[in-house]
């Protein structure tokens, strides 16, 4: 038996950013014993595989608000958690190639600006002034929000991990959650590869594997894991400040504090977690063509590493946060669609409340697990699932 106790107030499946932040908030609230299990090593999932982008430009007000709250949390992170996460507010630039795309971005701008964020709509020359050397005619225009930014994902995980542990949270790595023990329609325990523990609350924060875990617990969920590939180049003298995102193909890239260009783009892959986390020649060539086509000066830069991670996608683009109506004590904290880092600091506060059975300010028609049961319950769709 790996665990120090027989029973926990809350058990969390997944030691990624959502699971660790949730554990941290639970411990701060004095919730009682908290256990986090993860079948991999720390940062082995999407939390250690993402491009580090943090933006507040979204198509729905609720997402803009969660993202804005998360940006505030990242600004304080160094003081609160003791780690330098290299959070750099150098902006997010969305590129439009057609009038229709620009119109779509304009409505994003209107919404974002109405939330008090200083978003700007740019024409082609405005774009060129932010991305030195962009190919002529590559973009018709775009939107830019200077307070969006990038961070280095790993120290966020180390900070949350060490803070949660110092508050008494137990984190068991290399331990796979196999299912839940139930009785009378509610959770009584968590079954793991290292034995079972008693618990009234299981939080499914397993990212790309959350759909697998829910289904293993007998809960039919619409989450789909999709593989997204990403690459990094060798470091060069910094010349690019904002994160650049193209609406048409989901191309995104930024330059890290070390000087590497890091980015990806959307390609169709077999859905599900069975295909594994490799890279593909199609991605390398398509991505290289997209980068060099947009910014020809990148041609001489060498790719040093390519990898992939899972997006945990939902049909309407919103995460799933809250107790499952079919199984009491089973709390969802998943479906972040590749944007866990952008929303987790704010979202995990709500997850912690939900895990303790307390009400949250989240709109059930957008976030609750129940919304998939009755399609008419859904009121909005978040389609800006890029970068």
């Amino acid at each position: 038996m790996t665990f120090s106790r027989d029973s926990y107030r809350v058990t969390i499946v997944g030691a990624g950013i959502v699971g660790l932040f949730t554990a941290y908030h639970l411990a701060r609230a004095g919730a009682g014993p908290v256990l986090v299990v993860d079948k991999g090593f720390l940062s082995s999932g999407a939390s250690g595989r993402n491009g580090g982008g943090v933006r507040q430009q979204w198509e729905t007000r609720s997402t803009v608000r969660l993202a804005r709250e998360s940006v505030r949390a990242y600004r304080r992170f160094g003081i609160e958690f003791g780690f330098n996460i290299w959070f750099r507010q150098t902006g997010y630039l969305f590129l439009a190639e057609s009038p229709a795309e620009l119109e779509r971005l304009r409505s994003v701008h209107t919404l974002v600006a109405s939330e008090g964020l200083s978003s700007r709509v740019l024409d082609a020359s405005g774009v060129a002034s932010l991305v030195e050397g962009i190919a002529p005619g590559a973009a018709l225009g775009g939107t830019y929000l200077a307070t969006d930014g990038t961070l280095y994902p790993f120290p966020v995980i180390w900070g949350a991990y060490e803070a949660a542990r110092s508050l008494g949270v137990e984190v068991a790595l290399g331990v796979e959650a196999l299912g839940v023990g139930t009785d009378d329609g509610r959770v009584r325990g968590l079954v793991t590869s290292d034995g079972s523990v008693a618990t009234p609350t299981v939080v499914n924060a397993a990212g790309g594997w959350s759909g697998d875990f829910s289904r293993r617990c007998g809960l039919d969920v619409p989450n789909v894991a999709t593989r997204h590939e990403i690459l990094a180049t060798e470091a060069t003298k910094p010349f690019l400040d904002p994160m650049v995102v193209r609406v048409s193909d989901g191309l995104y890239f930024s330059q890290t504090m070390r000087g590497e260009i890091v980015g990806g783009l959307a390609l169709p892959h077999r859905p599900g977690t069975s295909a594994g986390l490799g890279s593909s020649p199609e991605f390398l060539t398509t991505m290289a063509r997209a980068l060099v086509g947009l910014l020809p000066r990148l041609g001489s830069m060498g790719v040093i590493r390519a990898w992939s991670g899972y997006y945990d996608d939902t049909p309407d683009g919103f995460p799933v946060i809250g107790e499952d109506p079919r199984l009491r004590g089973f709390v969802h904290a998943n479906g972040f669609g590749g944007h866990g880092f952008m929303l987790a600091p704010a979202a995990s506060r709500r997850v912690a409340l939900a895990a303790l059975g307390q009400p949250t300010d989240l709109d059930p028609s957008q976030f609750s697990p129940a919304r998939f049961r009755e399609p008419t319950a859904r009121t909005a769709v978040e389609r800006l699932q890029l970068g």
Partner: protein
Amino acid sequence: MTTENSWPSPEWDLFGAIGLLRPGGVDTLHGLRRPAFATRLFQGMVRRLAGTGAPPTEVGSRALSAPPVERTADVTVLGAGAAGRAVVDALVARGLRPVVLERALRTPPVPGAELFSATTAVFLPPPADAGERPFTILAFREPAQGFRIGTRAVVLATGRYDASLLFAGNDRPGVVSADAAIALSQAPRSPPFRRAVVVGGDRRVAEVLAACGGSVDAVVAPGEIRPEVVRAANDLGVLLYPRSLLLRANGRHRVRSVRIRARGGGAEATVSCDAVVLAHRRIPHAQLFFQAGAKMEWRPGPGAYAPVVRADGRTSVPGLFAAGAVAGVPPSDYARHAEALGDSLLRGTDRSEPPPAAAVAEAPTELLGYYRELLRIPGHGRWTACPCVDVLVSEVERAHRSGYRGIEVVKRVTGLGTGICQGRYCLPDALLLLSILEDRPPPQVGYITQRPPVVPTPLAALAALPTPSPAEVVP
């Protein structure tokens, strides 16, 4: 000079003061995070220091564009060294005309094969489930010509490389690998060193002495020195220091001497020299096997992973073969092994499980014990564990003290192995270091996923390769 990472000029580098003030390095993970205005100042400074050279230019990038090369082949052989050539001979004798890729800039012709020199295979994904040519190889020819090869079978004869060693000043100019020393000694110009210290005690040292013995002053060995090396050294008048710790390379701009100490707490000595040649340990070039999904095994001799290879060169991946040193075949056996490989390859996809190849007899490495002794030396924390990203041994030890375990996590905490060599240089030592810190055998420390590409590959080379069919691209 605007391209150097020094300010305001290479002669007056004010940022160099950081190195003087903080010889143990700056802790960027925990340090410099408060208050907010200081963080911004610091980030601006780091931004100024980051990267190397000048930002890329469009002119420079356009100069790299070259029409890509597309080929299909029955067999593709990667590596045109002695083992690769033996395999090509065997395949040609069986009526095949393989495609051969070789990294070296100048390679003698390979009769019967289509040879591309100065060409490095960078990506060999696991084979497709179906199709006539299940393997795809991405490669590039210097400086930036893209290659895509579809092939039925692949033979990897990628050889081995000389590993690094931890000691103070191991990143000084003048510290070179045996590969580099031998190659430089064959170049038609004045030798790059005249009084080298060679590190190691087995056959590799004999090879260095044979190639550039006249420019070697001494041999320092972590363990015993083999009799054949002793004989060669005596003939050349080279001094021998068996069972010695290499503590430090002295010299500011270039190695001027090394400080050594007899193992087990003996006396220290200084040996003057103008180069340190590392010939103590050779590691298989195994990245492409990892990429292709071949079953790997830990070899305690070199302290590294190598593919599991059958007696006829087959790996666990049907259609993927290994030849030469990377398969553990000694040079005297290359021709015989190539014949067996050729027969097996022609038989086609045989999925039966034959008995595994005989275990390769390799001298057990004493490096673990050597490092255990070395790491008790005060000040070892300032040694460079990963020169690409400038990670010190103390940073690895600090990560260990903070509770992080396993190479995958320590890599992410410290940045070790994430630079341009992707861990080829630092990983062999890092595994031993973690094995000592975590008190478990090196294979239990884990391994980092070997991600493509094997070497930095220009975006221009990849971008020139043909577009995948439109159906594959998301609108």
